[in-house]
């Protein structure tokens, strides 16, 4: 059991999108807990609701068409969903920061990167511009950008993708937040740069001690970084356990399928095709009845097609949403 203080406690979060073509239940009952200093991975295919969960935490869901219609998000004991917008603004960038997937477009092209980082600093800390500039240069140095004084007055387009992502990280960590949310932050980068950025994040986590919520579809990323992993499917969490458990003994058929589909170098060469999970992620407008994974599940029974399973704690710390979890 984790002795650390609970930082974020998401209970039964439901965020729906009301579009012209129908209602999309992007997040439909997600529970997630993040402890102080913990690195949690949130894994799933596109469209499973992981990014929406992140945006819901800091309440940046675009209001038409999205809406958080239920649940609670406790941060330091207070429900964020009940807070005023002005209070949320103080939290964003200060106590909870978020970095996004596309470094090429996530920075404002008409302002220097120094300006943009300093803005984050002066917004939340009572220091003057000169101090802010100093702090910014420190941050640039911290994230491994060479010649930070020169880079301060550069524009985003003068930097590579990897560097821009470092700038984003500098901006996000400038006020020493309690939680950093990384939404597919390495997905759009080259593999080698990806590795660099992940190393950077790991190092910073050790140094600054913040909790990180890593959102990704890439199991390899969380294998390196996360202590705890939550697997999301079609708007719900289907499995939640320590990283070790997930990789050693996955209990949910979906998790099992994901792990099977990763090519492994150590196994003996076979002539069999790489196993893939059959079927496709269900359309948000046409969710299957019963367990949402049942159309693709090799172990589905009649019960799975009729009723939705609840989350069950199979072993301490290992949660699964399935009627027939796989035996370890």
């Amino acid at each position, binding site marked *: 059991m984790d002795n650390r203080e609970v930082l974020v406690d998401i209970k039964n979060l439901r965020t729906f999108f009301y579009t012209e073509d129908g209602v999309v239940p992007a997040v439909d009952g997600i529970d997630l807990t993040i402890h102080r200093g913990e690195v949690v991975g949130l894994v799933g295919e596109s469209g499973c609701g992981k990014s929406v969960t992140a945006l819901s935490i800091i309440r*940046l869901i675009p209001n038409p068409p999205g809406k958080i219609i239920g649940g609670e998000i406790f941060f330091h004991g207070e429900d964020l969903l009940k807070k005023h917008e002005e209070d949320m603004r103080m939290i964003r*960038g*200060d106590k909870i920061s*978020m970095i996004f997937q596309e470094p090429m477009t996530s920075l404002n*092209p008409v302002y220097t990167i120094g300006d943009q980082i300093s*803005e984050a600093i002066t917004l939340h800390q009572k220091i003057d511009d000169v101090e802010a500039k100093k702090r910014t240069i420190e941050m640039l140095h911290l994230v491994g950008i060479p010649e930070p004084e020169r880079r301060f007055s550069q*524009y985003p387009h*003068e930097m590579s993708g990897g560097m821009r992502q470092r700038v984003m990280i500098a*901006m996000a960590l400038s006020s020493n937040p309690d939680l950093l949310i990384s939404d597919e932050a390495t997905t759009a980068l080259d593999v080698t740069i990806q590795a660099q950025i992940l190393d950077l994040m790991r190092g910073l986590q050790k140094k600054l001690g913040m909790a990180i919520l890593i959102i990704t579809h890439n199991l390899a990323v969380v294998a390196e970084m996360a202590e705890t992993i939550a697997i999301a499917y079609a708007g719900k969490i289907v499995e939640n356990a320590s990283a070790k458990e997930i990789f050693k003994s996955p209990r949910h058929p979906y998790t099992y399928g994901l792990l099977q589909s990763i090519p492994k170098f150590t196994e003996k060469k076979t002539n069999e095709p790489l196993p893939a999970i059959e079927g496709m992620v269900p359309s948000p407008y046409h969710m299957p009845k019963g367990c949402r994974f049942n159309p693709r599940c090799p172990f589905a029974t009649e019960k799975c097609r009729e009723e939705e399973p609840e989350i069950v704690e199979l072993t301490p710390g290992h949660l699964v949403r399935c009627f027939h979890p796989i035996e370890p």
Partner: protein
Amino acid sequence: MRDYIIRRVLGMIPLILIVMIVSFGIFSLVPNPFAALMENPRIKKADIQRLIKAWGFDLPWHLRFFKWFSGVIRGDWGPSLLYPGSLARDIISRALPVTVRVMGIEFLVSLAIALPIGIISAVKQYSMTDYVVTVISFLGMSMPTFWFGLLMMMLFSVILKRPSGMPLLPAGGIITPGLEEAPFWAKLGDRAQYLVMPVLVLAFSSVGSWARYMRSSMLEVIRQDYIRTARAKGVSERRVVNKHALRNAMIPIVTLVALSMPGIVGGAAITETIFNIPGMGRLIIAAEIKADYPTAMIGLMLISILVIAFNLVADIVYAWVDPRIKYS
């Protein structure tokens, strides 16, 4: 940057040449430009002969073009046929400031109204305000200006009258006869009443288009990732709009403004005709109708050159305002 400018300036030259050739070419299509003159009993045959020689009509067309071209460059724009005895140059230099005054005021008024409502319309997309602005924009853009002008005249000059029985606003002209020598302030007040209707008519359609441009530019920008980043940093919505979004949205607008500047000189021919404003637009049309081709050609050419020149200005402004181009 300097190379860019030099290249563009050089590129202008062939354009200007083409324009001059096309202008000249169209008027050369007229079989006998002096037909109208010959019928006028007040003009002596000898004078007509002189004109023919001066204009090179006794020469084949390519030589004629060169003769005209060299004359134009030297500042000899030929005689005016509309106002026999005067030089085209004088006529044009008297008409030009009138148009610039009317169009200049209309330009500023339109922008001052259109840009803010375009911004508000974008920020509050789909709201009632947005809807109203959109409908009004369409009304403005679809309204035939001459009809609107006539309607305004009906309203303000025929229907609405001052206590003295005079029309509320004068139906035409730019100054009350007799007041040409009046002191500045008296003249100003007098001039203003003549300007109200034409400016109103012209501004109504311009405001429509500008508001739409501003709105769509703003909408485009607000959708961008860097705006989401700004919000995630904790920037207030107001600042997001005024600092982060606006600066980016204005870039295309600024170039559009530069490109519209020539319109200030070209004037709105029909509006000037209806309201009897002795400006460039009316002059050129009148010249064409009355077969005063020298004046018409020069007028046309002037405006075209301004268009080309402002195209260049627009490009330079764009390069200067967008750091992505300035520093690359």
